């Protein structure tokens, strides 16, 4: 009988996962605006002083703002960056206005379709609806062509480069099977598109669960292990944003964050206290404070 190798565990530590991200990587980041972003992973990117990252997705928010404020960002390819009720993302805005970060502006559908095209290994995606906008003017890799069937003018949009996807999910087992609860929100479905498009996919989760837990609800396993590079347990991993079924966004901390983001100096103090000097996520959560966390946790289920 052949020697039997072991079932592989894809469970790795946050710092090990982030150490596998090269400077200059193109990263699709899950979540939207204030919600469901893999923020623990973002903080570790900052701790490990990653540089020149390109972030892509649809509707970015606090995750891009954090990277911009930490000087980790070179480029954003998305349909938008904003903080909802907290207004524009100030670190991001400042970085773009100062020419430190380039924003490639796509509409929502374009931002997704180029990632879909990457996942489907299509050589291009046809875009029909941006005539008259300034969008193609600033996207030099779009190529005008005539529809071979109708002759209509279209733009060929190349697939996105997605070296890595990083998403935050409710549950995974050590093998890398990822479970989402039955009522999932649209950004969670979009996260799956990112995960399947990337060359490597890291999933941070609120809880690592048993393999049997996954097999009890195979219809909720939306990302089977073979599509996952690594899983990382990251409780409160979307904080200060929200994670459905777990916690709402942390108003107390968000106000502190937004206030700090008003100047580079204040944000550097924020980063030092909550990210760099904190050194790890447990210390981050300690400094955020259990009272803030408990308040955010009061979601109506």
């Amino acid at each position, binding site marked *: 009988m052949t020697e039997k190798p072991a079932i592989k565990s894809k469970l790795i530590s946050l710092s090990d996962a982030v150490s596998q991200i090269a400077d200059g990587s193109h990263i699709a980041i899950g979540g*939207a*605006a*204030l*919600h*469901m972003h893999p923020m623990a992973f973002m903080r570790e990117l900052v701790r490990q002083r990653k540089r020149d990252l390109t972030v892509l997705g649809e*509707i970015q928010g606090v995750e891009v703002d954090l990277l911009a404020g930490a000087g980790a960002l070179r480029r954003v390819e*998305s*349909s*938008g*960056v*904003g903080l*909802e*009720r907290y*207004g*524009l993302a100030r670190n*991001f*805005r400042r970085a*773009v*206005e100062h*020419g430190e970060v380039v*924003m490639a*502006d*796509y*509409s*929502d*559908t*374009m931002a*997704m379709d180029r990632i879909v095209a990457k996942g489907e290994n299509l050589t291009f995606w046809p875009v*029909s*609806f*941006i*005539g*008259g*906008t*300034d*969008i193609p*003017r*600033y996207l030099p890799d779009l190529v005008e062509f005539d529809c071979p069937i109708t002759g*209509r*003018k279209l733009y060929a949009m190349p697939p996105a480069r997605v070296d890595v996807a990083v998403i935050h999910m409710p549950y995974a087992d050590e093998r890398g099977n990822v479970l989402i609860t039955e*009522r*999932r*929100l*649209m*950004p*969670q*479905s*979009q996260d*799956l*598109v990112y995960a399947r498009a990337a060359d490597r996919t890291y999933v941070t989760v609120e809880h690592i669960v048993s393999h049997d837990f996954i097999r009890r609800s195979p219809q909720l396993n939306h990302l089977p292990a073979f599509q996952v590079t690594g899983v990382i347990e990251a409780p409160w991993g979307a904080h200060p944003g*929200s994670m*459905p*079924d777990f916690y*709402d966004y942390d108003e107390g901390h968000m106000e502190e964050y937004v206030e700090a983001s008003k100047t580079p100096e204040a944000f550097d103090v924020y980063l030092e206290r909550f990210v760099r000097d904190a050194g790890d996520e447990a210390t981050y959560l300690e400094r955020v404070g259990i009272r803030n966390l408990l308040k955010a946790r009061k*979601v*109506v*289920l």
Partner: protein
Amino acid sequence: MTAGAPTLAETLTIYVARQLRDDDVGFTGMVNGDASAMFGSAIPLAAMYHAQLTHAPNLTLLLAGWLTNPDISKLETMPDSEFMASLRDLDADALINAYPAQYRLRRGDITVGFSNGAQVDAYGNMNSVCIGPHDHPKVRLVGPIFQTEHLAFFGREIIMMPHHDWRNFVEKVDFVSAVGYPGGVAGRRELGLDVGSGPALVITPLCVFDFDLESGRMRVKSVHDGVDPAEVRASTGFELGDLSDVPVTPAPGPADLEILRTRVDPRGIMLSNANPGEAR
């Protein structure tokens, strides 16, 4: 509860409700910020729900494209995001949990939509990308988001502008992130855009605009009660022509108002801000 003259928000809600048809499929996202939330989310949602309760029971309300026919009256607080679990769990016909969503964007499933932008110009082009040049913007804004698709694929788009100022009603937007009627309907056709789509109305704290489909230019359709047309002109960065015959935006009747206050927004969480036009 039902006493009192209509607020501007109530007047505009009923005005919008009257634009809606029984066979409409209406789409609105959730917008943040006091005035923006009122114009961008609360008025459209309340108007669609009011229409469902009155003349358009078969209207389909698509909240952010993923929640079909939610019971708006059950909201306990006004959500400040379209990605919140409280919306996800709201009593509704359908919760779309797949990407792409159920509605057929490019086929024109959506017959009426609501959007807003930092700038809108004389031809209904919109901008939510930047003020100043794209390469070195004076203000970097959010991005094109879904605005491009709103004006390209939805049937009648109702642009809800929370602020009416010559700086955001401009002759030409700094970045066209969504296309109105450059060159009129003929211009839209040349650009490959559906002529059945595009902006139908622009609603502001001062007035309602529509479009001359031939020239493609925006024109004042009505001014709100108590607004001097001269104020509209002074607040608009493009030529408006003769405003002497412009009517007043119609007031809601008492029956509509009562339904709005007792059944659409019974907790007063949607339309409670008496003066949404804070920029006025």
